[in-house]
């Protein structure tokens, strides 16, 4: 299998999202670039609405992820509660 990643702008809105990704995906690695944060994970990377909401204490609509999304790899499996990147389909 191979890696998947997601790259987001580095700002106040994405901080809780990135923290949630790192918490939900043990073994994922964060790398910082100017204005951007990239998170790499082996095989599979999941973003959970619940974890983001636990970080902020506010309701979060996963679609708002796309406002700050720069790039990603992998096939997307997305619903209201989670977004999963992987190469399996």
């Amino acid at each position, binding site marked *: 299998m191979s890696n998947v990643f997601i790259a987001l702008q580095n700002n*106040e809105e994405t*901080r*809780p999202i990135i923290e949630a990704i790192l918490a939900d995906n043990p073994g994922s690695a964060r790398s*910082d*670039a*100017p204005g951007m944060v990239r998170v790499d994970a082996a095989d599979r990377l999941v973003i959970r609405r619940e974890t983001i909401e636990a970080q*902020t*204490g*506010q309701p979060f609509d996963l679609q708002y992820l796309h406002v700050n999304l720069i790039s990603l790899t992998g096939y997307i499996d997305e619903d209201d509660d989670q977004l999963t990147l992987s190469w399996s389909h």
Partner: protein
Amino acid sequence: MTVELKTVAITPLRHTFTHVAALIGGDKPASRYQEAVLGAQPDTNFHYRPTWDPDHELFDRKRTAIVMREWNAFKDPRQLYYGTWTMGRARQQDAMESNFEFVEDRGLVARLPHEVAERALDVLLPLRHAAWAANMNNSAICAYGYGAPFTSAAMFHAMDHLGIAQYLTRLGLTLSDPARVAAAKQAWLAAPAWQPLRRLTEDTLVVSDWFELFVAQDFVIDGLLYPLVYGVVVDDVLAAKGGTAIAMLTAFMTEWHADSAKWVDAQVKVAATESDANRALIAGWVRAWRGRALEALAPVAKLALDDEAPGYVAGVIEAFDARCAKLGVIGPVA
């Protein structure tokens, strides 16, 4: 000629303010909420003591019997600071505007059964005075409280209550006319059904321990009043009788109460977990104000629900007691 583009990553020397870093366990990026409230309380080098209260400093930990080692522990789970609070409330205000527009444009007021509209006006309109008192009380908590995380959230809570009072006034004007709003004030001042609640409300206005005031107003009184009036009377009983339009006009109150209860519960929990002395104090306040609130709300419940009142009130009490038990602040009933 080739131009080689290079990026240079500049790493900041520090990620946040020193006083914030000391409270979040080291120098790491802090959220705006943390930077807005943590360590923002002035706590040293005060000038003269206030002439209106020479026993205390201008900001003083001893204005409440609650004792904390770290007053910054009273964090808001909703993480509201001015930016998030105004944006959140603006969204809710937009939703309420469209609710009012929907009700007015479609003539839903004329379609309300007369009995239901009258009942809603009788029960809801005098409550704008209770909401205004809650605004005063939370302003007092902000003024005399200690610790910016607590006092800033109390000020938001105060303004939310003012908004609720305004929504109630607007509901009265939508369903009826200014004379009806004035009549509701007379009911609040003179009608026997409202006097116990008015007395309770006025007694809270002179509570000097700000944490007791918080427990009395935000935890106990609102914790019983909102589920009873907006949960049971409006959303349940009146809606079932064809009063859905009224539930649309009070949608903010229901949503706000569920959301702000998270903040209230978190504060009670933090104070009670700090020490057994705090827990005993809070349990005592809950016991005392719960008894008084139930006495005051009984005639209001009767006004709203007639003979069905005791059954519904029992349900509200049960839910409130479960909330207390979860927070560990219900003492043995004396």
